[in-house]
């Protein structure tokens, strides 16, 4: 490949990453036909690959792609009677005989927000929301999404087909919800983005692209909803978590926060995460993602484990427990309490949790208790708890970590 071709290829790749969602969203907005929208977006990118090397990269690739996809949709609809009837209905399409050349001056409103909220509508099954968001907004292929969620490709394809069918047949509206529905629906969107991030984060190689896609989507959401604090909270949380990823495992063994090499944390990600969190907090409406990001920021900015602001982290976990009660949050608070008020106080919180029974079978309950007992010098009890955690641990990295702890006792 010659150099200019490489440059064009890179421009098309960049456009795919940045513009795919916008092109699909605009086409769905115009035609209400999700499959047609995806097909025409695909065609527009193919046309870009074919013509940009000859004609040069347009000054506004997104507008060029959207207009090309729209013309393609018009052509396809003209082919049959039903389509022509639809075209008359969608006068907005029929009125546009203009080719890509005129697109440069056109202002295309950002339709992605409508698309995000529709993909994450609570009437769709949760896993379908996740798949549909990835397919329509980031342009990941069905095969890529299936791989990321360890599903067979036909299963994933079926899930997408069913979701699109339900949107049409059940009358799920293509819009940003009105103010009275917004808080609840925004939470549904944030949950989908956070799941995508965690799916990429929890796994070893191969799925890491998902964390990048989740961060990209969170950035889009922040840009589209600048006055909502929680999207910023979620973006900050993702950035601050991503910053520590490289240090989470060493040679396939889990490395806990205490022993991570802080010099290898991503400084730029941490700085950006802290800045985004500050913007969110300045809006003065708290929420669970902002609190989680604040906790992550405490860790990310502490010089080492011991001098971390543990009282602050314990208070933040208590706040998180009020906003979104969960025994896992309480377990995290126990660790922070142990660090700030002493092992005995931390163990008291853990014992209360164990007595409640909500975390039965969850490996981090005995693992946490084991750590606290070890710090207290109660080796025999710690050993029994580590062994219990080892039986319950779900991943190889965690089992290897626990074996290491047992050997070190």
């Amino acid at each position: 490949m010659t150099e200019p071709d490489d440059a064009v290829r890179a421009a098309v790749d960049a456009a795919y990453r940045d513009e795919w969602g916008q092109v699909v969203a605009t086409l769905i907005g115009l035609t209400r036909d999700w499959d047609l929208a995806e097909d025409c977006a695909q065609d527009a990118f193919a046309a870009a690959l074919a013509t940009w090397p000859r004609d040069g990269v347009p000054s506004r690739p997104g507008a060029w792609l959207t207009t090309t996809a729209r013309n393609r949709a018009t052509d396809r609809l003209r082919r049959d009677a039903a389509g022509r009837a639809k075209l008359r209905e969608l006068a907005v399409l029929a009125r546009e005989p203009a080719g890509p050349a005129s697109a440069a001056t056109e202002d295309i409103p950002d339709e992605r927000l409508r698309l995000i909220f529709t993909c994450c509508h609570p009437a769709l099954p949760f896993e379908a929301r996740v798949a549909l968001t990835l397919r329509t907004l980031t342009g990941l292929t069905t095969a890529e999404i299936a791989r990321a969620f360890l599903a067979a490709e036909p299963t994933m394809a079926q899930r997408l087909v069913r979701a699109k069918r339900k949107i049409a047949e059940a009358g799920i509206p293509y819009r940003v919800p009105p103010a009275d529905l917004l808080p609840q629906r925004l939470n549904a969107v944030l949950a989908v983005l956070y799941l995508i991030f965690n799916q990429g984060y929890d796994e070893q190689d191969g799925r890491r692209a998902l964390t990048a896609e989740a961060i990209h989507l969170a950035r889009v959401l922040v840009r589209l909803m600048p006055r909502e604090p929680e999207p910023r909270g979620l973006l900050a949380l993702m950035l601050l978590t991503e910053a520590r990823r490289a240090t989470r495992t060493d040679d396939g063994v889990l490395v806990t926060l205490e022993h991570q090499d802080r010099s290898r944390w991503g400084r730029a990600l941490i700085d950006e995460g802290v800045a985004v969190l500050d913007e969110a907090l300045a809006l003065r409406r708290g929420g669970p993602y902002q609190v989680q990001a604040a906790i992550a920021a405490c860790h990310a900015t502490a010089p080492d484990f011991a001098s971390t602001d543990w009282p602050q982290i314990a208070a933040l976990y208590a706040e998180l427990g009020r906003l979104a009660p969960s025994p896992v949050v309480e377990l995290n608070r126990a660790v922070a309490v142990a660090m700030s008020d002493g092992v005995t106080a931390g163990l008291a919180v853990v014992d209360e949790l164990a007595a409640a029974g909500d975390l039965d079978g969850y490996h981090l309950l005995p693992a946490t208790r084991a750590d606290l007992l070890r710090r207290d010098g109660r080796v025999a009890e710690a050993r029994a708890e580590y062994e219990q955690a080892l039986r319950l641990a779900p991943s190889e990295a965690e089992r290897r970590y626990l074996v290491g702890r047992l050997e070190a006792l």
Partner: protein
Amino acid sequence: MKYMLLICDDETRMPSMAQMEADPVHQAWQADLQRRDAERFGMRLRPVADATTVRVRDGETLVSDGPFAETKDVVGGVVMIECADLDEAIAIAAGHPYAHWGSVEIRPVWE
């Protein structure tokens, strides 16, 4: 869009028609339907004790007592509504008294 709302509960309460009419939640639901001009028709059904289920298998008509499926909630009424989209149907359904102790299933009408 046309939706059939299936008004369901487990029949432990069984308010009488007069009690339903007197329930302020039910009155608010009726007023909401009127304001939206959404109701096409609706009816309350007799309890499942009065239900009969018919199935035809291999040319034979099988008649059995009670509802088709043994589930906790059963359909106690149906209301056909016509409104803009699923979000409006959800808003309407959430206003029905049964939604507070039973459930309301929203089924788009096959048109």
